[in-house]
């Protein structure tokens, strides 16, 4: 297989991941080797990974429980809070063979945990029922999304399946769509309205899409990644009506549902809204909603765990979904972490105090960071940033000097990628270029994760400003 032409032609089309991460790794290595740089270490806030930015793991409870599940002998020698022991015992009891080392009982996950998740959803949605058999676990929401897309995908050329995707979208999404062989059909979010969704734009995008593909689904992220926009009731209802009349399956990524901090903003689940719209919608609209432990208050990106809830999907179709999962049962530890996420300590439990503190602190940090960063960036000439109401990113717009744009053209890079590269080399700060989020025109944006200790964020902001002013000056 030594010739490029022998590789599956569809894969040749997968867009290259921007390799800022490897550059960051290189620079870190150089610093370790003693090379002098204008900064002491690389700060990476390009992805929604709080640990990388230095946030301590939340949910000490979760980590303790997982540790005990891995090595139950720990209980003998240590005095852990009583609820840690109880949870670990219960969770191990739910695992096959009483051990985290065994495959999950079913390819969809551990039955008791499916049940816990269903209960969590039902409670969250004020009684709208959720059923364990509609919950399918996988190693992260990317993987679950991958499965559903694979199910939907078919056709080539004008019959190729298309998915309406927000612009901007999560930076890992375009590659995923490429790999599955599904066409990305962008619908622009309105920056001037805080990145709100626009119904007219949806109609336009769909109409245009029908000319060159077969649009079958619509992807939404709410709270928005990377925009931080939280959709209101009216918007959600509009989207649902749109999906119903245009026969689109809704793919709703709700991984930041517990990180809403905008004033007077509340997370509304698509499912809840759907079921309050009456049977003509709630019986018909097909929806898959995704959640994971990577986001929000858990932030356990490395563990790789998530689930999808499948709503109104034909049973036979659902069986196919499960058969795809079959050879690769989802990892066990993240399912346990998921259980803790959906079933947190109650008042009276030994870990309740510590746990509540952690959550409060986390939300407070996020809120403060969001405000501080937004205010700061809006004060930098050549930058503007919409207020985020949820999620862990900010997505400011950049004005780039012509010289940068020219230089980028000459090097065959996108201008925002070049910007981020220079920022990394000169200031040791790694941000994400907006082109990864789908912005591939002169609408330059960058993406930064604000789930970081306040001091780290401050450092990032100062360096960013210093760099931005410098390059504007340089080219005048």
């Amino acid at each position, binding site marked *: *297989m*030594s*010739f*490029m032409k*022998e590789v599956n032609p569809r*894969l*040749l089309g*997968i867009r*290259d*991941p921007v390799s800022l991460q490897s550059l960051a790794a290189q620079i870190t290595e150089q610093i370790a080797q003693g090379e002098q740089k204008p900064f002491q270490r690389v700060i*990476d806030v390009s992805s929604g*990974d709080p*640990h*990388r930015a*230095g946030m301590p*793991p939340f949910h000490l409870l979760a980590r*303790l429980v*997982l*540790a005990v599940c*891995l*090595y139950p002998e*720990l209980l003998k020698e*240590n005095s852990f809070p009583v609820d840690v022991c109880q949870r670990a015992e219960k969770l191990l009891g739910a*695992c*096959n*063979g009483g*051990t*985290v*080392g*065994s*495959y*999950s*009982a079913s390819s969809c996950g551990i039955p008791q945990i499916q049940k816990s998740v269903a209960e969590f959803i039902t409670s969250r949605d004020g009684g709208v029922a959720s059923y364990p058999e509609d919950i399918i676990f996988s*190693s*992260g929401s990317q*993987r679950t999304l991958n499965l559903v897309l*694979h*199910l*939907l*995908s*078919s056709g080539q050329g004008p019959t190729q399946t298309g998915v309406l995707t927000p612009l901007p979208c999560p930076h*890992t999404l375009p*590659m995923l769509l490429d*790999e599955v062989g599904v066409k990305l059909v962008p619908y622009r979010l309105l920056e001037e309205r805080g990145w709100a969704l626009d119904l007219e734009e949806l109609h336009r995008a769909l109409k245009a899409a029908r000319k060159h593909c077969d649009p079958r689904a619509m992807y939404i992220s709410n709270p928005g990644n990377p925009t931080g926009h939280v959709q209101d009731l009216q918007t959600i209802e509009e989207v649902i009506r749109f999906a119903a009349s245009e026969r689109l*399956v809704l793919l709703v990524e709700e991984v930041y549902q517990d990180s809403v901090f905008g004033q007077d903003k509340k997370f509304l689940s698509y499912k809840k809204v759907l079921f309050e719209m009456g049977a003509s919608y709630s019986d*018909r609209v097909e929806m898959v909603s995704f959640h994971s432990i990577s986001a929000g208050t858990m932030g356990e*990106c*490395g*563990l*790789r765990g998530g689930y999808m809830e499948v709503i109104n999907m034909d049973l*036979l179709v659902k069986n*196919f979904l499960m*058969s*795809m999962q*079959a050879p*690769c*049962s989802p*990892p*066990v*530890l993240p399912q346990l972490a998921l259980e803790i996420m959906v079933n947190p300590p109650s008042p009276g439990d030994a870990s309740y105090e510590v746990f509540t503190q952690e959550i409060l602190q986390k939300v407070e940090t996020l809120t403060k960071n969001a405000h501080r960063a937004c205010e700061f960036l809006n004060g930098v000439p050549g930058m503007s940033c919409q207020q985020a109401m949820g999620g862990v990113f900010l997505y400011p717009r950049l004005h780039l000097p012509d010289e940068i744009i020219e230089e980028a053209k000459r090097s065959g890079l996108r201008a925002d990628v070049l910007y981020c590269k220079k920022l990394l080399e000169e200031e040791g700060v790694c941000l994400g270029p907006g082109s990864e989020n789908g912005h591939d025109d002169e609408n330059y944006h960058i993406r930064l994760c604000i789930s970081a200790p306040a001091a780290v964020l401050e450092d990032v902001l100062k360096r960013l400003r210093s760099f931005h002013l410098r390059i504007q000056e340089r080219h005048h």
Partner: protein
Amino acid sequence: MPKLMTSLQEVNPRVRGIRLSPQSGLHSLAENITRDDIKGAPQPFKELIDVSSGDPQRAGMKPISFIRQVLAVCLCPELLSDEHLPLDVRLRALRLLEACDGESVGSYTTSSGLLYIRQTIAEFIMKRDEGVPACAENIFISSGAQRGLMVIIKLLSGGEGPRQTGVLIPQPCPHALLPLLDEAGVLAVPYRLIEDKNWAVDMSDLERALTTSRGRCEPRAIYISNPGNPTGHLQDRKSIEKVIEFVAAERLLLLIDEVYQDSVYAPNKEFISYKKVLFEMDKHLRDTVELVSFHSLSCASVAECGLRAGYMEVVNMDPGVMHFLDTMLCTDINAPVTGQLALDLMLGPPSPGDPSYNTFVHETLLTRATLAQNSQRALKLLNDLPGMSCRPAMAGIYLYPHLDLPAEIKEQAKTLGLEADVLYCQMLLEEEGLIIGAGDDGTSGSHHLRLCILVPPDTLGEVLSRLSSFHLHLADRKRNRIV
């Protein structure tokens, strides 16, 4: 009210084509039985035992303490100061945490896995292969060897009709392999292993399979598992050399599943890796044969199937193509970090002198001994049963006995639209609460069972007792024509 995505026509035709393994049927049946059990319905057995897949921990085999301890500390760094845990455990955890991004297992890693771990893997391979060079850049970590295999197969796949990619696979093969090929849109081209020679690879059948497949598809790779899954066959150097010469002549990519390399128990037998053999052959072969070998945590000595991590080592692959491997693994983001760390612990165990060394050696030897004894014991019993015969296994964690089924069972199976060995397994499950795998014989017309023998000795006793009770009863029934 019409549903939206109902009609099966609308599901990706390739997904519709994924064959259901007999495994899933048995497991649903088992689930139903468990549910009935919970409801209080009387069962003729105390509890279900499942030895149909390679999941030793499910059956009660203990994990390696060192691995579990280090992982616990990595998850909960407060334990670094817990003096009840051996010092080497805590030092290793510290080292691993430093290797993690953000010094936490909760952080994303690069998509092909943490560099530190890939280096450990490379060192392990070099040591195992006595000096044949290995480097971290050629190693890709994925969530289980299956996922890695899927990535490679997808890379190869393409074309339709007579231009569809084909992959030669052994018959029998691991039960998860066929659905995987279906999902990737690749044609499985079976080559028969020789049961009479303890499931050896038959070069003439390999050639036959390849020749007859051309015209129906474009064969581009050959999959082999060594030690064989589920056969337990261990290839010797000569056999490996023949395969290598074959793939070189036919320009096929070699996909080698070596997951059970650590479970050789036949006396005077040793595992030798395909890569090592390749590097000791002609320079021309060494420089051109393309090979991908797989290993994972789901192996014998460690058996951490639930943690989901494995790796593939790529030999002589065009760097441009390797780049795609990385791109595709990107869509998973990364393999679970806890799994990646476990790979480091599996392949870089305690050294002599370390506080954990003795326990580690003891646990590993115990597993090895259990496996060998179980294999011998089960082999004898199976061969003593009328209508059953089993070739001895040299490695791996399964036995794969041949079943000579009575005509009545075959008839009944036909009426039900099942394979006869699947029916056998269903009946076994219902009557004895024992789940054994049905053979993966495809169209060969012969029937086999697959059972995992890496289980605690008591459990094996129970398994063998239930199986022989059922099997003899079946023979009785045949005589009394009750079937």
